[in-house]
């Protein structure tokens, strides 16, 4: 189209073309328009909704950690909330795990393990990654051992603010 979508349909030429369209085509365009309208509203709510139950914001240092997480493809092997690769463990709650925590994370970042290469992070980079994992830990639980499964197949998950 040589005009912007909506601008185009307001022109006389376009209205004329619309009239010439087969009936089914008009019907399909209307259905698509309705779906797109719903989609836009839905997206607006998803993008702007502040009502998420876990309102934890990343600090500037955590954002640095996030960028390091991305630069080093940590997601290739590790998961957050079960999303990511499966060669390494899920790290959603590694920070608050009674047997793990920041010292444990630091040790792994220093030396790597059998499958994990040594990344040679400097001290501030390690702090940033640990800070990132600390903030993530505050947002919720995964795996959610205290979830309740209903007969309908629905799962009620446990939110951190409920503690």
């Amino acid at each position, binding site marked *: 189209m040589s005009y912007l979508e909506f601008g185009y349909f307001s022109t006389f030429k376009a209205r004329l073309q619309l009239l010439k369209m087969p009936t089914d085509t008009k019907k399909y365009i209307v259905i698509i328009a309705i779906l797109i309208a719903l989609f836009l509203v839905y997206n607006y709510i998803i993008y702007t909704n502040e009502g998420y139950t876990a*309102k934890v914001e990343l600090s500037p240092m955590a*954002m640095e950690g996030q960028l390091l997480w991305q630069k080093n493809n940590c*997601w290739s*092997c590790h998961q957050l*909330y079960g*999303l990511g690769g499966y*060669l390494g463990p899920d790290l959603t709650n590694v920070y608050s795990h009674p047997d793990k925590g920041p010292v444990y994370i630091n040790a792994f970042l220093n030396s790597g393990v059998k499958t994990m290469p040594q990344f040679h992070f400097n001290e501030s980079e390690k702090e940033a990654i640990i800070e990132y994992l600390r903030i993530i830990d505050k947002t*919720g639980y995964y795996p959610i051992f205290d979830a309740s499964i209903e007969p309908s197949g629905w*799962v009620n*998950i446990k939110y951190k603010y409920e503690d």
Partner: protein
Amino acid sequence: MKTKLPLYFLAFALISLLLGITFGLCASLQYVFPEFLKEYIPFSKLRPFHVTSVISWIILSATGSIYFFLVYVERLKLYSDRLLKAHFWIFALTGLAIYISYLVGYTEGREYFAFGPVIMIPILLGWVLFGINYFKTLRKAVSGWPVYYWMWGTGIVFMIYHLTEAHVWVFEYFRENFIRDMSVQWKSYGSFTGSWNMLVYGISIYVMSKIKGDQKMAKSKTVFFFYFLGLTNLMFGWAHHTYFLPIQPWIRYVAYAVSMTEWIVLASIIYNWKRSLPKVKLENHPMATRFMMSADVWILLNLILAILFSIPAINFFTHGTHITVAHSMGTTIGINTTILFSALLFILGKLNPTFNTNQFSLRRGLQLFNITLFFFWCSLLTAGIKKSYWMYFSKKGLFSEMQDAMMTVYILIFVFGTGLVIALCMISFPILKEFLRKIKR
């Protein structure tokens, strides 16, 4: 003389597939021998190479097939050959830039798009050019579009939207709220897959209607009903990825209601098509038809899996395990790849009617493909079940101990993965050879 650029897309697609399966095999070997190549190219570096290559296979083969159908089969005059040329070179050079960026470690992106976000700009430009060329070509030339034209148009438009959405994390507004960021990220990935499915499923309906010689099936009310159901799924059915993110429950309710109807859509279409397929037409494109029928079986298997884990109570145990990988392998290899191979064989039949699509390599390759993929898929399911048991039932031992205990399964994944690579090579090489021969002429 007609442009050969659609064939360039297809040749590059096959090369991407061959690279992708090689990277994938090396990555699966690192599950068995963790030290293998670890110092040179660890799993964290191999995975982006694998993922980018196999996504490129799907995208490039779908794009090349669509261009080919428009120019060679429908004999439409493209709005602009220059746009097509620009589209091809943008994708080819961007692909090269991505591989180089991975080699030098410029990977600031995220899962599926590990490259620096700036590289997404030319990719988006390529899609915009494709969109302009596509809609401009069809707008006046065809009235009363069959469903595949709608599907391809939808795929292109939503691809642009969701590739953009996958990169809104560059804005601090999205990045600072971790849960919102994760929701939007996985929303975009779910819909990105839905967008390429629009292209691939559109291709399947196109090829089926051409083999059958029946245009009515692509214009029926039923097929349009399913198209709209698929579109609804693309728009709203992504959140089954995020059932266990602490997002608001209504998002998860919507996902539960909408998710996975897409599989029912295609299963129904192919089932109805096959039932009414006249035997005589099968002789025209025997291998294309066989590949399409293989897709039918894989749809059924993945449909069962998808329906099961779209139920949150089951997803609870399968999420974060290799069952998810089994689903993605089953759909990208079992369904998308068989449909795309079917399209490529149909294209070869059009380009060179004397090309023997029923040759040994293709026939046996398809058999080996189905057998090895089935066992590969089952091995991944087994790995997922074992991990889930460790996570929720036994809860014993460290992660590394659980991994060590799964070594037999990982060996099986590697062995069947090797068989799958051999099968894909048996299928790809003769097709690629023929495309290259046609390009040279």
